[in-house]
């Protein structure tokens, strides 16, 4: 997969965009320990992404055997196959292919899709945003609501509501995302006809720009069921973590002094909650991997045109360039999001930076 000469540079990857934004934000803040922390984190995550990509390169080269035979018919002579391999750069030594591969990836050059015969980026570019627009709001909602619920259940114990709040999480954790999705469809879409049964927008709607689409009522109407599905299934974890963390923090000495200062109960709770956030945040840093798994499944259930749906389609069509690129993009998104959360938390709790 060599880069044709004279071609325009592809749009920078979402990962690079996010990292750039993050470092700009970071530079605006003061403090050398903070800068060191940010730099360290950026480096670590870039390294992770590189290792991941390299692993992918090896797997894709080693495992399917001869990728060329997938797209070519067996009747072609060995000569013709060899010439095609040469054209694709597949006969060069492995390390040479690897270097080209990495360079291509950094420039957003993913090759040509087997099934669409178009550049992979053209196929996947839009899908990235579609996935993000589904994943991020629901994950954010789940975390915020989960933390609030955990705060409530951790602070007030013994009420009847609390017993429910303790009983539900294990049940919901066991609730498969796809099953909930199907049930929601059965009830609210096919049954009551309140919501559409899939897709991101209705047939025949024309929009001039993507942003206009995302802020339209039609879009929100389509987003509702998938959003609900994801939020509900992602609620239990942050809630449980926050609750147990708050229960532990409740016994801390400084809370006694804070209460003695004559502040309202809400202020005491605020202190306790802030002190309990660390375990929650530790989990939040890594939750995007899990959120992505849910998103992939939900995209299938609701026919949502995102990366998840595309990668599954690609697998069924043996479209290896798309599979590889989609996996890379998904990993890049997750790593960037995790990094962003990590950095954001550094601002919230200065203890993390000093470590």
């Amino acid at each position, binding site marked *: 997969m060599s880069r044709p000469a004279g071609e325009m540079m592809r749009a920078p990857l979402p990962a690079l965009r996010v990292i750039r934004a993050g470092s700009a934000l970071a530079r605006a803040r003061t403090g050398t320990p903070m800068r060191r922390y940010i730099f360290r984190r950026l480096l670590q995550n870039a390294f992770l992404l590189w290792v991941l990509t390299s692993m992918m390169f090896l797997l894709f080269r080693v495992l399917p055997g001869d990728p060329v035979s997938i797209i070519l018919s067996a009747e072609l002579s060995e000569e013709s196959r060899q010439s095609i391999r040469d054209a694709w750069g597949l006969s060069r030594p492995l390390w040479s292919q690897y270097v080209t591969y990495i360079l291509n990836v950094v420039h957003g050059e993913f090759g040509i899709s087997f099934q669409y015969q178009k550049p992979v980026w053209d196929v996947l570019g839009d899908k990235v945003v579609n996935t993000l627009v589904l994943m991020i709001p629901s994950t954010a909602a789940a975390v915020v609501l989960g933390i609030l619920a955990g705060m409530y259940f951790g602070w007030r114990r013994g009420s009847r509501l609390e017993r429910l709040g303790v009983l539900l999480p294990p049940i919901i954790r066991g609730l498969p995302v796809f099953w909930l999705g199907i049930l929601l469809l059965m009830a609210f879409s096919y049954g009551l006809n309140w919501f559409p049964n899939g897709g991101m927008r209705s047939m025949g709607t024309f929009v001039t720009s993507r942003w206009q689409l995302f802020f339209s009522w039609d879009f929100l109407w389509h987003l509702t069921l998938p959003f609900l599905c994801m939020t509900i299934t992602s609620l239990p974890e942050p809630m449980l973590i926050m609750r147990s963390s708050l229960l532990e923090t409740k016994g801390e000495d400084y809370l006694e002094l804070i209460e003695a200062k004559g502040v309202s109960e809400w202020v005491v709770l605020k202190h306790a909650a802030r002190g309990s956030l660390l375990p929650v945040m530790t989990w939040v840093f890594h939750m995007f991997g899990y959120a992505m798994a849910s998103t992939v499944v939900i995209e299938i259930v609701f026919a949502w045109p995102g990366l998840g749906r595309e990668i599954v389609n690609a697998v069924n069509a043996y479209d290896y360039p798309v599979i590889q690129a989609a996996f890379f993009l998904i990993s890049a998104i997750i790593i960037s999001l995790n990094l962003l959360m990590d950095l954001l938390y550094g601002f919230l709790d200065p*203890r993390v930076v000093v470590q």
Partner: protein
Amino acid sequence: MTLVELDRLKVKFRTSRRDLHAIDNVSFALSEGESLGLVGESGCGKTTVARALLRILPGNAAATGRILFRGRDLLAMSLDEIRQVRWREIALVTQSAMNALDPIYRVGTQIVEAVRAHERCSRSVAWERAERLFKLVGLKAEWVRRYPHEFSGGMRQRAIIAMALALNPPLIIADEPSTALDVIMQDQVFAEIDRIRAERGTALILITHDISLVAENCDRIAVMYAGQIAEMASANVILERPLHPYTIGLLNASADIAHRGMDLISIAGAPPDLTHPPAGCRFAPRCPFARAKCNEPPPLVEHEEGHWVACHFAEEAQAFRRAGAEASTWEAAAAATAAA
């Protein structure tokens, strides 16, 4: 002028098994500007008294009796009322070694929080006050912007004292303020406290297990044992003429740098289990001078003016003092307890 008066205060903690009777019938009075030292072993209830005064007892606590602060009963107040009293009338100084300050917030923020909870003033004014308070306790003003983990133990203790002074309360309760500090730091901290008290006329309740500390720093001393007051008098009187065997034991157990080569005694045994408080005198099992009559609970009586004691045999105190100075007396008591 009486500032605070405890009237038959009882506190019990309800646990899943039995009730723990932490404080049993504690009464004392404190005047404006006066300092009272509350001494006793761990678990004798002195910290519970402090918490009861501020009504920051844990949820499973039940308090009866009265705590009169300038005539108003603190125990009868509503939550809103007691929040007004907290910090403004009574402030707490705790041990700095423990997590006394919230590690996530700057120290100044925590002082400002106390100030703004009670007074309407802008943030900048409150921060200025925090800086002034820091200077008052001998800390650099710009350190208000630092985090608790950046302070050393002694500095943290001063910061906590500064915070307690924020609203100029008439009463400060200091709960083991110097336990985690070395003697030199201890000295400095108390010098600080004395100076401030002299300037502002603040009353002080000093809670500690170290009797030598209260001997130095307090006008009056109350010795507590197993949730009850064993003896209470002015500091000089307690030092010169202790009446209660427990007080005698405590005094003899403290090293006196002037008397080198002196025998240090130790009171063997442990305080009673307060889920099953004993019927008679609570110290009797460990007392070298216990007799049959000690199975009846001794009332707290004013033996001489201003000197209260809960012991049936206060008359014989002089003999007790002489015997109590010998280590053998206490060793015999230890052997007797072990045999029992």
